[in-house]
């Protein structure tokens, strides 16, 4: 075993540098199931604390839903724990096929292939279908996993300013000589909570003979009248060529993701996508629970409707209290603080008031755009959100930021 002291010291110095910059990430230990109320140990070894959770991707409150858990138990008994195989060797059960069919119906596409995660779906899809004669044109705020997937592909890449359709159109004109032009966007942008203008993106794609890729991880299950996603919200279902999404957020919250879209694209992923070919199948209990989730969501829109009500109440409450928020329609509501230290201080103070949120700052978001990202759930109710608002007001007042606009906060705290 060779682990040279010089190498150890170099990595220790890197870790020290991360701590000095104040960007060292520490896990908080949760001693209860994922829910709107959780029991947390933070920092490690501290007394357990009951807090309201405002930072989970548990948008529909299904992560610990009894029917979802029961479906997992049943599959565990009937299909076992794990597959000990990738899909194409001996890792495909009937539940995988059923889930792929259900996702195809739910998303309104032609076919679907499961991946171990949406990160894997994004890592695999571009390389599987594109070559050097193609171009990928992505929004500048797409998720990191898409950036990684783009880097793995041989096609050239370009980017357009966030949701700037005039800039996208320029890029489409510039790349008319390519075989495939693939426009790449998130449906709901994870840090800002805004929606990609998918109707306008599809119109440009049709005008310039381009394909559209949509990562709808922060939308599947609750955006759109029946929760199908951003394509339903903008009335362009059936016109998106590739949708990737996750089972790790609203759709049960465990893990797993997919590529859903044109038949040939899905088929090429089955032949070539490396995370599909070289990583284990989604475990049977997770696949079975995801089928249950889709059944629940297809039967009623009650949960996405409640989430919408909660998000509206929360947005208005924060505005009335005098916070600066990113306006939008999604259950991702960023409270803008601009200064990184302020974001960390406010998040810490909120924790001691019984509210679990996290501050985000550069490089996770652009420099000078530090924020606390709050996320609503159908598992929240109005009294719970009223209590959380009181805590936000108390902490906001303590830091003297209520009623200040962006310039006011920057004048007080700097960038």
């Amino acid at each position: 075993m060779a682990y040279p002291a010089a190498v150890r010291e170099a990595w220790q110095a890197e870790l020290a540098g991360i701590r000095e910059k104040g960007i060292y990430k520490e896990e908080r230990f949760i001693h209860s199931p994922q829910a709107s109320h959780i029991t947390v140990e933070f920092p490690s070894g501290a007394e357990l604390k009951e807090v309201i959770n405002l930072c989970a991707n548990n948008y529909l409150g299904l992560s610990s839903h009894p029917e979802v858990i029961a479906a997992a138990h049943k599959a565990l008994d009937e299909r076992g724990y794990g597959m000990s195989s990738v899909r194409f060797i001996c890792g495909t059960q009937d539940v995988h096929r059923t889930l792929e069919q259900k996702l195809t119906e739910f998303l309104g596409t032609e076919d679907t292939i499961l991946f171990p995660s949406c990160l894997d779906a994004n890592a695999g899809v571009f390389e599987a279908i594109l070559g050097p004669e193609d171009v990928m044109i992505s929004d500048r705020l797409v998720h990191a996993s898409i950036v990684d997937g783009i880097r793995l592909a041989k096609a050239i890449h370009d980017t357009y300013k966030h949701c700037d359709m005039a800039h996208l159109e320029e890029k489409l004109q510039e790349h008319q000589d390519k075989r495939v032009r693939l426009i790449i966007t998130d449906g709901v942008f994870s840090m800002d909570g805004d929606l990609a203008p998918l109707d306008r993106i599809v119109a440009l794609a049709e005008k310039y003979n381009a394909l559209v890729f949509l990562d709808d991880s922060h939308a599947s299950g609750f955006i759109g009248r029946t929760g199908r996603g951003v394509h339903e919200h903008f009335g362009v279902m059936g016109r998106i060529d590739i949708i990737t999404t996750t089972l790790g957020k609203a759709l049960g919250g465990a893990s797993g993701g997919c590529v859903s879209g044109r038949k040939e694209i899905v088929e090429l992923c089955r032949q070539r996508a490396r995370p599909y070919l070289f990583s284990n199948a989604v475990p049977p209990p997770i696949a079975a629970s995801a089928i249950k989730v889709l059944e629940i969501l297809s039967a009623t829109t009650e949960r996405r409707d409640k989430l919408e009500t909660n998000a509206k109440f929360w947005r208005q409450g924060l505005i009335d209290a005098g916070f600066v928020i990113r306006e939008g329609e999604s259950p991702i509501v960023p409270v803008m603080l601009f200064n990184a230290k302020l974001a960390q201080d406010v998040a810490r103070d909120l924790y001691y008031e019984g509210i679990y949120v996290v501050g985000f700052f550069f490089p996770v978001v652009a420099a000078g755009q530090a924020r606390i990202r709050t996320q609503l759930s159908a598992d929240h109710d109005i009294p719970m959100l009223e209590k959380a608002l009181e805590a936000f007001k108390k902490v906001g007042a303590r830091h003297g930021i209520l009623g200040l606009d962006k310039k006011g906060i920057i004048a007080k705290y700097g960038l």
Partner: protein
Amino acid sequence: MKEMILDYIKKEYLDEDEADDMTLDEHTPLISSGIVDSFSMVSLKRFLEKKYEIKLPDEEATPQAFDTVTSIIALVNKHLAKKGA
């Protein structure tokens, strides 16, 4: 060359309100400050290659080399000199 590159950066990377608020000159850090993300600098590279009819090898078109307009000009001049030689 300096003005042309600065104009391109403003148009390609800044929103109108940002361009008005910000003073951008040849010494302003672009990538390390987050004005240009390293993933999006590819369009600047292509712009320079097309404009000056040069090829900037990937191993030289690093985030460090693209961090200020001054360092970008140095890189472009190096390859212009090679082309002329």
